[in-house]
């Protein structure tokens, strides 16, 4: 007991101090355009991201890896939706698979049974998929926290079983013969452009007024309610946006593989976006994107290990959650905007 007491009276001599960098302060107001350096500080990261994404398919030679990029972009759309819902609206949605499945089936139905071409089915599927998902999730919206998470996790599983049991929409065989894209370049670049637009669009959105309401719902929904705003309405709008992104991904998936089936409700589509958000850094919107670009290629690399691949994958995930749960982007942003130093007390 005496030891403990002694330790308490030990004084610390130095502490770590974190300050904004000079250049960050300078770029906050009108002085952002005062010199090339400041402009670069602001613009460069975003430019690198956009250019990087656009150039990626051109730089990577192998057809197979180009396909991996497309798949990564689909996961990225889901991750964006998840991050948006979880960190900007406070709804932890584990049901990414649900959006993909609904969007995928809608696109396949519109294409196969109604006969529309992919250019039309994708936007239509996005829109109708978002509507369907929002309507189906409506009863669950008032739930909070872990309850909402579990319900959304169960939705894709339940609907997959229902389709299987009732043997509708192609049952376990799925819907085949869905049209593909006319050329490879369109296939490749459409999704990249969509991802870029989604990313910057969402960033814009959360800084608008409506974004403020969303954040209010996340922080203190009773206060928002007290202001006379309907929480359910705003939550539905948020779910609409996120499920729209997911349905878009699902519709795209149906068209690149020319098929749609109950495995589009697979758990993988729910888990990977969450993992990407954890690794990439939640709350930054660009973090989950980068997380996907890290996670999916690694997962493909690991195929060489056969079944052990998933073991490694899960271990990486656990390591990140346990040790670096803030995520790469948050860490990077902190380093970019601030610096740390030891200061004498």
């Amino acid at each position: 007991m005496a030891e403990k007491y002694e330790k308490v009276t030990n004084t610390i001599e130095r502490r770590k101090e974190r300050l904004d960098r000079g250049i960050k302060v300078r770029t906050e107001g009108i002085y952002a355009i005062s010199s090339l350096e400041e402009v670069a500080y602001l613009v460069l990261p975003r430019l690198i991201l956009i250019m990087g994404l656009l150039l990626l398919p051109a730089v990577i030679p192998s057809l197979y890896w180009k396909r991996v990029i497309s798949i990564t972009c689909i996961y990225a759309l889901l991750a964006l939706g998840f991050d948006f819902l979880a960190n900007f609206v406070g709804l932890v949605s584990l049901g990414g698979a649900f959006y993909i499945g609904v969007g995928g089936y809608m696109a396949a139905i519109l294409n196969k049974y109604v006969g529309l071409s992919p250019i039309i089915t994708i936007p239509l599927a996005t829109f109708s998929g978002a509507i369907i998902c929002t309507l189906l999730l409506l009863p669950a919206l008032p739930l909070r926290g872990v309850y909402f998470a579990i319900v959304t996790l169960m939705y894709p599983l339940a609907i997959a079983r229902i389709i299987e049991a009732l043997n509708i929409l192609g049952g376990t065989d799925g819907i085949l013969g869905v049209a593909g894209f006319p050329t490879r370049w369109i296939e490749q670049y459409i999704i990249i452009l969509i991802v870029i637009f989604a990313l910057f669009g969402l960033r814009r959105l959360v800084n608008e007024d409506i974004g403020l309401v969303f954040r209010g719902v996340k922080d203190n929904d009773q206060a928002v309610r007290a202001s006379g705003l309907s929480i359910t309405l705003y939550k539905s709008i948020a779910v609409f946006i996120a499920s729209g992104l997911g349905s878009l991904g699902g519709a795209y998936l149906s068209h690149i593989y020319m098929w749609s089936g109950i495995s589009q409700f697979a758990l993988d589509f729910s888990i990977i976006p969450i993992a990407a958000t954890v690794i990439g850094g939640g709350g930054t919107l660009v973090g989950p994107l980068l997380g996907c670009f890290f996670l999916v290629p690694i997962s493909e690399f690991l195929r060489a290990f056969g079944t052990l691949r998933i073991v490694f994958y899960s271990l990486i995930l656990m390591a990140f959650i346990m040790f670096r749960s803030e995520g790469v982007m948050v860490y990077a942003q902190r380093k970019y905007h601030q610096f740390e130093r030891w200061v004498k007390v």
Partner: protein
Amino acid sequence: MECRNTIQHSNVPLFYFFTMDILIYGIVNSFSLALMAIGFTLVYGISRLPNFAHGALYVITGFGVWWFIHKLHLNYALSIILALILMGLIGAGVYRFVLIRVRGMATSEIIATYALGLAILEFLRWRGFKGMTYTLPVFIEGSIQIAGVPIDLQRIIVIGIGIVVISFMWLFTHYNKIGLALRGMAQDEHAAMMLGIDSDGMAIIAMAIGSILAGLSAIVLLPLGNIVVEAGYNVLILSIAVCIVGGLGSWGGAILAAFMIGFVQILTVRYIQSHFHMVVALLAIILTLILRPSGLFGRQKELEERV
């Protein structure tokens, strides 16, 4: 194709027979669900930790006992005891080294435990535990007839052990010091901490007991069929279903929920179509969460769960 007419034309004793068979197999099914779910409910009730590795713990116990029996050539009873002790240690270890870092962040807990479960299951696959030839022997061979319904002894053991475990847990949490501490934690964490109960210590014990219970249910239920990795996912979903319908945090509710779901499943199979066996569990979760998130007897406050 289906000839239900033959049944309707039968005489009264046959109808009685069917009700008996629903009763008996309903009870067996309910106890199976209760055994599977009680470990999960315990951990969630006490430390609000959704342990998504529950299914994996179930499966690894099965393979563990198999390995002890066939590779180390130990006696069956000894293998069981050894496996259960091991499970307790693993459970405690999981909390101490993994979950303690993510405590409180619901999403991270789910992901961490899910990733762990996934790692365990895939690791088992990689080690060669695939295919359908891994089985555990039943405790007692043979079958008997109860009121005209044939039932094998292992299933009766399931009921027996179910009753024993439930009573034991009840007694433990009402009369044993540690059990009372666990119950206190479940009721109100902050009050318990003020009384000097160590939250992390209790959580370690809860995880250990939860894992042992998962293992126990595996040992009792796996001899009925074979041990396959896929069972892990099914067990997880069923446990979540029972836990949620019963109310997170209420053990009485969980038992009742197990019975409800168990009987509904059997009735659906009997009178509607066996198609919907799993859909029942999933729909139960969704409906409960939408209509009454706190489940049957959950003690969560209304405001905490919905707006």
